């Protein structure tokens, strides 16, 4: 897969570059002229009220929602466009798939494959997309399940796991693709409160480990202040303010951010 030399836009210090992204669902203008750069290895936490478009950012990067205008680059390669005689044109499915290999996403509702065991969930994509042998994929999946603390659940079906366990399998499943960019969409929001910790612990480990670029939409401010390099406050389709977790969480400039944090923290 993806052996063809990609079109390089010099951007060594940018892993995800979103340029003038606009996206509407009917009347609802969800993303407005959004510019957003994420550095390689950076951990970015996106906060904001529901309906602010923060989840849509991740969905655009995952190609689940196509923007109406603007460009997205992953590690210097255009995601939705390719160069044709020096002109940017809409990319074909093949090009999108090649670039998308660098990205994976974990969902609020896990979206595990219910008819496959934990280990099978982790093995399918590495075999079908990366061309790993069954043995290689099994070893990789087993190591990752071990890493997320599910070394004893290889052969369980998702229906036999708790929410926290399901989400950890889902994280392992995405990690098995060794993406450069991992997107986490409110991955603890659907969990019982006592199960949130086990998933956050895995995320914190991942964040501290370093090399992978992570973008997380979450309401877990404790996690944000511990693990994030940067926090983005999102409102009405664009970044309202951004900065280090200390800055945004303790000393936000905008009233809107203050109100939002107060609501979330008192929750």
């Amino acid at each position: 897969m993806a052996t063809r030399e990609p079109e390089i836009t010099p951007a060594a210090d940018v892993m995800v570059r979103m340029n003038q992204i606009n996206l509407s669902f009917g009347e609802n203008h969800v993303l407005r002229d959004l510019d957003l750069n994420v550095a390689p290895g950076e951990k970015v936490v996106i906060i904001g009220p529901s309906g602010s478009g923060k989840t849509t950012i991740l969905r655009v990067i995952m190609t689940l929602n196509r923007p109406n205008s603007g460009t997205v680059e992953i590690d210097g390669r255009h995601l939705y466009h390719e160069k044709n005689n020096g002109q940017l044109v809409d990319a074909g499915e093949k090009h999108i798939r090649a670039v998308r290999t660098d990205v994976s996403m974990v969902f609020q509702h896990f979206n595990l494959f219910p008819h496959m065991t934990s280990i099978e969930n982790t093995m399918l994509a590495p075999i079908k997309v990366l061309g790993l042998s069954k043995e290689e994929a099994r070893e990789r999946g087993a190591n990752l399940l071990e890493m997320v603390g599910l070394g004893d659940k290889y052969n369980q079906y998702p229906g036999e796991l708790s929410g926290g366990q399901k989400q950890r399998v889902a994280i392992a499943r995405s990690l098995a693709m060794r993406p450069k960019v991992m997107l986490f969409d409110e991955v603890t929001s659907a969990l019982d409160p006592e199960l949130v910790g086990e998933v956050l612990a895995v995320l914190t480990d991942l964040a501290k480990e370093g090399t992978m670029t992570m973008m997380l939409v979450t309401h877990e401010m404790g996690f944000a202040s511990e693990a994030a390099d940067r926090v983005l406050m999102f409102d009405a389709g664009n970044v309202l303010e951004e900065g280090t977790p200390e800055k945004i969480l303790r000393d936000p400039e905008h009233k809107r951010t203050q109100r939002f944090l107060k609501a979330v923290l008192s929750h």
Partner: protein
Amino acid sequence: MRVVVAQASQRGVWDWDFALEILPDIVRGLWQTVQATLLGITIGMILGLVLALLRRSGVRLISWPTAAVIEFIRGTPLLVQLFFIFFVLPSFGITIGAFASLVIGLGIHYAAYTSESYRAGIENVVRGQWEASVALNLPPATTWTRIILPQAIPTVIPALGNYLVAMFKDAPLGAGISAGGVLLVANSIRSQTLRGVEPYTVMGILFLVVSVPAALFVRYLERKYGYERT
């Protein structure tokens, strides 16, 4: 008065010896009907899945004609379709034997119905499964064969079972194009012996003997696949 008594004493309304005599022929005819049904449902299940996938195609040049064909098939009677295949297609240089016409007709007719069941089954697969497939960058073929269809088809199996039983009861229409089968056998016994009670009654009972267990089997399938493993 004399005449009636004589007829009744000669042969009652029901003649057991006659019924037993014709039983083997009717069983043979029924076996042909069963064969036509099994072959027909095989075509119906495979072609139905193909139609369902074509109908879901994002290319309207494919999905719209497919939808039209499905509606056309559902909107016309099976017997007319059998006549068309057997009597009309030869005019266009396509000659198909009577039994093959029956099998093809049953298969195509029921494919239009099974395709709708498949479509419902596919639409029942939650959107998150498609999104997870994108997030793992699975190729479309893998998404279909490993993620979507394995979840969609179990929910369709009870409906397919019902179509199997319904097709079995439609298969005697093959008599209309002399495609063999139990009804054709019963008809020819009646025309040769001028007795209709025994052949048609024996046929009806044999139908029950096959279709009641088949219906029970479908109930079993419904219990087995009617709920989803999550």
